[in-house]
């Protein structure tokens, strides 16, 4: 059995050891919290980026609704979207819009409520086929048909290469 004198000598070593254990546990815990916070921040950043991109697309004069009939933030003019879709498949136009939209694939979908039909239109496609890490989002808005004056429920689907 150890005497009281021996225990007193070991006490500073014990204190240092306990301090080191507490610090290591703290460090491990801090790293885990930081990692989960970073991945959470990444997800928030990606979502914010997708939303900003969708807003940017919907407000482009190339496809946005005329000012006097505009309904909300996300309103797409169907006749403009049709013309833009044709134009954006041209290489020069594609390269120009690349500086704004980057490696993205953008689809416009709308539901004709009278017939219940779902329509799709590819607005812009510059997503490399080899992309594996892709972030996707859907933003809802309205699609205005200038021919009939009707507005349909619309969706802007965005797929973006991440990283």
């Amino acid at each position, binding site marked *: 059995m150890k005497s009281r004198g021996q225990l007193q000598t070991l006490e500073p070593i014990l204190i240092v050891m306990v*301090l080191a254990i507490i610090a290591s546990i*703290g460090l491990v815990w801090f790293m885990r919290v930081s990692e989960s916070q970073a991945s959470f921040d990444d997800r928030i950043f990606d979502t914010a980026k997708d939303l900003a991109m969708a807003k940017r697309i919907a407000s482009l*004069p190339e496809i946005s609704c005329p000012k006097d009939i505009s309904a909300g933030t996300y309103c797409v*003019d169907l006749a*403009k979207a049709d013309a833009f879709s044709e134009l954006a498949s041209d290489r020069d136009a594609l390269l120009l819009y690349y500086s*704004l939209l980057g490696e993205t694939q953008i689809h416009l979908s709308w539901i004709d409520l009278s017939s219940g039909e779902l329509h799709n239109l590819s607005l812009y496609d510059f997503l490399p086929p080899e992309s594996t890490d892709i972030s996707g989002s859907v933003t809802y808005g309205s699609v205005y048909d200038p*021919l009939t004056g009707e507005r349909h429920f619309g969706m802007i689907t965005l797929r973006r290469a991440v990283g």
Partner: protein
Amino acid sequence: MKRGQTEPSFQWLFVLIAGGVLFLLFGVLIKSCAQSGSSTAEGLELSVVQQKISSDAWQGESLAEVMLPSAEVVCPEQGSMTFIGLTQQASVDDAPVFVSSGIGGSATMKSVPLFLQENDVPIPFGSIVYVFDHQTAYLFIQDRENKVAEIASSVLSPRKKIIDASRLPYLSTEIPEGSLRVVVVAVQDGLLGNVDLTGVSEDVDISALVLLPTFVNGGSIRFFSRSGNAFRESSRGQYASGEMALGAVVSGKSTLYSCGERAIAKRARLLSNVYSSRSENLSRSSLESPCVEYLHEASTILAQASEKNDDAEFLNALFSSAQRLTALQGALRAASCPVIA
């Protein structure tokens, strides 16, 4: 409880508190290091400026104070607009942007929507970014009709001054201290012949321009550069709208101005094609008179402007048709037809 029993438990409490404090200090230290690292990077990367300009150039109505790394802006006649820094470079070729020949330090970045003509039913033609570098001084020469004051009010720079034409022989005394670049702006011809640049240091990059309105939205520009102690005309050009007149002021030099003009023309062509194709498709549909006639006329005007290969000619044709297109836009709305844009 005896004294011997209480002492060790206090020691353990001390150990726990000390450990906690150590851990907190450690955490705060790591977090503050991470934050300071990211904010420094934001201010010094040309790619950040490039990204900011490129995204703002497509969206109107934004205003930001930014710190820009020191860089020269290069734009040869047929090349692209590129920022060249000490160790990096960034191209903003496709961005409709007007920027002075050198950037660095504090600057104001403003994007404004470009309309064919302002009215109740505007026809949008994208947006333009102006980068007002705070090391560039803008000296506006007063005119009787206060036209220069109108342009000066749009310039967001702390180094702008409106000076009387009688002060032109003493121009060096009017330049704010610490200015690296100076752009002199006049709206009357013949004024720049009176400028004496004797007192202006050779280190100061000084240029001048005269804006002369010749049609409803635009007019002609005469660019001047330094030749000894006077200004000498270096080139002439056209500006198609008030926004582009301001672009000429910000750029100061014809090569840089034509670079911004080219980027605007590129996008305006795409927009013209979208509007023209849309109007033509709608005019062929089941719409009734007068919608069909109005839309067909609009489509023809836009398509004819697009046929001009030269960027300046295309923009002038587009903005010269602004009144008619605006009238058509108004007439279409009044007749409850789909509008041009």
